[in-house]
């Protein structure tokens, strides 16, 4: 009788373990999948830095475009990009935050809110070149803004709006209902509660959204090409109605030139663009973390 009854506990935890070969293989595959994009990026970066780093000097940063690669520079593109991104943020952040506040705080669940929500999700999936076409027709032609900074910034603002709206809504949702009720119970109006309780707590999330949006806007070339941003600009923008170039446009133009010197310029331009992007993101992330700490989260 005792022969058919093996000691139970020992049979469960000792003895031959099941084979883990499959699990190990799967883990290896996942690791490979995770490393692959990093590897590709590293190779690309290495190539760009090796080609372009030596080209970056004061002359390169402070010169206008030229027919000769040695005397060409990114000044017009870089300044154009700064204008463009600043304007884009100035347009997209207030509109995006306003939309998010309306949808989260004021809109009743109904057809209008659903319609707006569906459209925002759809907009997020539209290819950027389509935005360029829209901008060309609407801002450049119909509203006669010409190929100006304002037209470019409005187009990019449309492009990044869904990013800001979604990030802000997410942030607003994390603000506890109890705090809204606390504010209302003190006799504040809904606007006062939104303005002084809810929005301050959502600022880190809004910043995250704005970082993503700006990063997207600063790297976009396609919509600007369609819009008709200039590739040869020997002046700096003097206002929002000025024609403009942008860094991605400049890089795009250089890569399509036959001379080897321009390829070097393009690589150097890419480095400048990337460093700017990283610095922008870094600054925003530091600001956000400081604020989160202040909110005690």
């Amino acid at each position, binding site marked *: 009788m005792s022969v058919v009854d093996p000691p139970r506990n020992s049979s469960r935890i000792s003895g031959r373990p099941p084979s883990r070969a499959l699990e190990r293989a799967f883990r290896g595959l996942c690791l490979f999948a995770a490393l692959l994009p990093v590897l590709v990026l590293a190779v690309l970066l290495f190539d760009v830095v090796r080609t372009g780093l030596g080209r970056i000097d004061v002359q390169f940063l402070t010169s206008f475009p030229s027919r000769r690669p040695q005397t060409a520079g990114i000044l017009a593109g870089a300044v154009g990009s700064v204008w463009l991104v600043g304007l884009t943020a100035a347009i997209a952040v207030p509109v995006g935050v306003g939309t998010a506040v309306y949808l989260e705080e004021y809109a009743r669940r109904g057809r209008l809110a659903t319609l707006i929500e569906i459209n925002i999700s759809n907009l997020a999936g539209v290819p950027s070149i389509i935005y360029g076409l829209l901008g060309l027709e609407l801002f450049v032609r119909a509203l006669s803004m010409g190929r100006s900074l304002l037209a470019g910034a409005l187009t990019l603002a449309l492009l990044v709006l869904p990013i800001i709206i979604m990030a802000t809504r997410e942030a607003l949702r994390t603000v506890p209902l109890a705090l809204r009720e606390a504010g209302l119970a003190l006799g504040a109006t809904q606007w*006062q509660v939104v303005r002084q309780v809810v929005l301050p707590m959502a600022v880190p999330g809004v910043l995250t959204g704005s970082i993503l949006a700006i990063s997207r806007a600063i790297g976009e070339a396609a919509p600007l090409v369609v819009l008709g941003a200039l590739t040869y600009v020997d002046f700096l923008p003097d206002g929002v109605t000025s024609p403009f170039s942008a860094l991605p446009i400049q890089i795009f133009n250089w890569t399509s030139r036959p001379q080897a010197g321009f390829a070097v310029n393009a690589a150097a331009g890419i480095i400048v663009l990337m460093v700017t992007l990283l610095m922008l993101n870094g600054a925003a992330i530091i600001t956000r973390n400081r604020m989160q700490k202040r909110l005690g989260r």
Partner: protein
Amino acid sequence: MPEAFSESACGPAPYRTMQPSDSMPDTVAAKLSVQELSAWYGEKQVLIRVSLDIPERQVTAIIGPSGCGKSTLIRCFNRMHELVPAAKHRGSIQLDGEDIYANGVDPVLIRRRIGMVFQKPNPFPMMSIRDNVLAGLRLTSTRRADTDAIVERALQQAALWSEVKDRLGEPGTGLSGGQQQRLCIARALAVEPDVLLMDEPCSALDPIATTRIEDLLTTLRERYTIIIVTHNMQQAARVSQKTAFLLQGELVEFTETDALFTKPKDKRTEDYVTGKFG
């Protein structure tokens, strides 16, 4: 003679046997008078023709099992009930004889006269202790020169002053749970309301913090009309002068606290206070 009681006789609930004469001395004025109040969330009715008169400068407790409509009742008092989508109500509530649901009455102004303390302490996390006390004034952009005095008075009344007077600039969320709840009481008192609603204010607190809040109620009722919702019958017995027992949205009994606990008139009240259900 309070009108709500005489009116309740014509309601559909025949078990309401309370006599106004033995439950309320004529000298105590009704601060809040509730008549035939029904409330719904969508199709679900949570209050059924509740009528009661809340006496001024006393503590009135509202007891009953979970889901009986206690919180909904007091959220009707400061018009917070209507903030929930699909919430509706019928009946009237009078504050000092004025209908708070009348046309043209701004709920915002009602809430400045009827303050509220919630179940869980909810100080504003981005504000210091001092700013939390002043939150009611800050949010409503009320300019006051004597803010220091307001802060000290409110914190004194909430029995928190001695514990925080040296660190008013620190965040309110850094305090213990019981201190946070007293901070929330101070915040409600700083806007100088007439009535203070408390929705299970001690349910998230330990026994010592609970005792402090209960002691506080005894001093606060000298100046304020207090309505406290509690699922804790001992607490109701300790702090209140009158108690209302709600069951499934109906007011079963509303009388002097001593009488309700020692000689309840309704069988269901007796069963509840003796712990047969709940």
